[in-house]
């Protein structure tokens, strides 16, 4: 047998479960076995949400009839998992904004943790859209190591 330098795959899954705390600063209280609440907010095409985004902000968030600032809840009904050396997690249901009118073009959704000070998780972009008295639905990719929405490899 030979030793191989690596980041342990179980650690990647642990990161998705907030198991480890390397420093006391900003460590969330996860003493209870209760999942945090995650939400999805839509952003205008003119916004700047990206890897540097640290938390949800209402600046340049979409607005319109039927849309509530902060967006809608995201369901992570399936626990983080791993295949080979990749950990992954994907919302277990589509993200849907029903009966809304969003007249200004939007092209991004921010997923954030509303339980932990609205800290940002990920930004996902798509072709610019508007909605009129209708429903905007984001269907998730397959939850696996190749296409899962959030992957750590």
């Amino acid at each position, binding site marked *: 047998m030979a030793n191989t330098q690596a980041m342990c795959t179980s650690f990647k899954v642990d990161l998705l479960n907030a198991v480890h705390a390397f420093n006391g600063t900003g460590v969330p209280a996860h003493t209870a076995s209760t999942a945090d609440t995650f939400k999805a907010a839509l952003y205008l095409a003119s916004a700047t949400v990206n890897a540097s985004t640290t938390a949800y902000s209402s600046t340049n968030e979409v607005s319109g009839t039927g849309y509530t600032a902060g967006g809608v809840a995201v369901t992570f009904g399936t626990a983080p998992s791993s295949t080979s050396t990749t950990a992954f997690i994907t919302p277990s249901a589509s993200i849907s904004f029903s*009966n809304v*009118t969003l007249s200004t073009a939007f092209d991004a959704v921010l997923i954030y943790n509303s339980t932990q000070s609205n800290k940002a998780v990920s930004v*996902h972009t798509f072709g610019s859209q*508007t*909605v009129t008295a*209708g429903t905007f639905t*984001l*269907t998730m*990719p397959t939850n696996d190591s190749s296409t899962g929405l959030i992957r*750590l490899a």
Partner: protein
Amino acid sequence: MIVTTTKGEMDDSLLEKREGSDETDSETISFTEYWLNGEMVHRSVHVTLKRNVFSEGITQMIG
């Protein structure tokens, strides 16, 4: 079928229906529009995400 529109709920038989779709490497988008007398009164959009967020964990050799 009853459709929610900017004019209230209407029977779709009174409306012109337009559908379309677009597919890229990152998503598939489909939309359904209803028009009344040249005015769009309903537009719904369905986006299927393909592209995911990917991060690579890196360990540094010691020494």
